[in-house]
Every structure is written in C-alpha cells, then in structure tokens.
C-alpha cells in the first residue's frame, strides 16, 4: 500500500514538474526591436491625426498624405514579417494583421474626403485603443503582466 502511495505521489510530482517545465500555453518572448518600431509608428500616426485636426486647409486631401500611408504600409509590413518569424507569436501576428487592415480602412475613408474634426476624434480613439492593446501584450511579455 505504501509502495503504491509513493508511486502515485511520484507520478503526480512528475506531471506537475513537467507542467512547470514546458508550460501549457506559450507566448513568444518580448521583442525590443518590434516595440521600438511599433512606438515609432504610433508617433507617426499621432502626428498625422494632430495635423488633421488643424483648421481646414487645401492640403487636407488623401493625395497630400500619400507619404504617411506609404510609410505606414512599409512599417506594418516590416513588423508583420518580424512577428511571423517568431515562434508562438500568433496573438501578436493577429493583432498586427488587424492594425494593417485598420490602415487600409483609414486610407479608404480619407479617399472619400477630408476628415472633419469629429471624424478625427473617432479615428484617434480607435487607433489609440488599437495601439494600447498591442503595447499591452508586448509589455506583458516583458514584465509578466
């Protein structure tokens, strides 16, 4: 009976140790390069919105902001390639795919006409929430929560 009990406890111990050693859920480690590139993209986007809230001017159209859209597209592409190359990084990849889709939506919206200040406020809230969510996960990888 004692022998059985010891075997049973040993088995439980082995399972618990295995669980601790190779965790059930894996999330990729923190990536400082991605964090920096992401923060830079956030700054570019915030500057774009700040500029868009200025008084209406003739250069408010989509064609005058092509460089912003091109730079954002390039930055998103780099971030996605890097994120996809990392193992266990599906959550961050999905977040970046959604953000990339948001930039496409932003461009489509801009092609429909200049942004009003009410629209800029709406857009700023959406993009801030998106950036915060991605940063939250990235910082949780660094600090553990």
């Amino acid at each position, binding site marked *: 009976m004692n022998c059985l*009990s010891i075997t049973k406890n040993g088995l439980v*111990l082995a399972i*618990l*140790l295995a*669980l*601790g*050693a190779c*965790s*059930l*859920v*894996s*999330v990729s480690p923190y990536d400082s390069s991605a964090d920096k590139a992401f923060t830079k993209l956030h700054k570019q986007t915030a500057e774009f919105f700040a500029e868009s809230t200025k008084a209406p001017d003739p250069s408010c159209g989509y064609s005058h902001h092509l460089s912003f859209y091109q730079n954002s597209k390039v930055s998103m592409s780099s971030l996605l390639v890097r994120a996809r190359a990392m193992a266990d990084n599906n*959550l*961050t990849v*999905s*977040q970046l795919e*959604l*953000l990339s*889709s*948001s930039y496409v*939506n*932003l461009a*489509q*919206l801009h092609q*429909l006409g200049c942004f*009003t200040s*009410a*629209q800029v406020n*709406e*857009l700023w*809230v*959406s*993009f801030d*929430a*998106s950036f*915060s*969510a*991605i940063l*939250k*996960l990235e910082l*949780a*990888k660094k600090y*553990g*929560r």
Partner: protein
Amino acid sequence: MSKIKDDLGSLLLAELLVQASSDGLFTHDRVSVDTQRLAEELDAINTMVIAGELSEEQAALHRQLRLNALKMKLLAIEGVDAIALERTLDGMGKVIRRFYGI
C-alpha cells in the same frame, strides 16, 4: 505522509493566491466593459449618421475600425491571461521543486 501533503498543499495554495491577487488571472469583467463600450461607440457613430456628419459608407469604415480595435483588445487579454497562467504554473513548479529539494 498526510502532514507532508497538507504542507505542500498550503504552499501551492499560497503561491496560487499570490499569482491570482496580482490581477493577471481573472479578466472576464474587462471583456464585458470593453464590449459595453463598443456598443456605446457604435451608437455614437449611428448618431453621427443621423446628424448628417457621416455618410453610410464612412460609417461602415468607422465601425470596422472600432471592431478591429476591440478584436485587438481581446487578443491582448488572451495573451496577458496566457502569460499569467504560465507564470502561475512556473511558480507552482518552483514550490514543488523547493519542497522536494530538487
């Protein structure tokens, strides 16, 4: 043997409580708050359409942006939960290893 089991159980429970109290494990309330906020935001977009500030086409794109933001938030919550669970398991594994002197 029973005393040893009780001691280990207490240590594991203490570790679990430490991890749980550092707010990483229970996030259902945050999901419901975010979902509620999305409903309010979609309502605000509808109000802008009624007021003539947005066309239907523009409103659809604004709604899509809000939905994307919510999906990103939910993915962040899922990731933070996974990290918290990983830390909890690691912590409990350490307790067991310390207890048995491994």
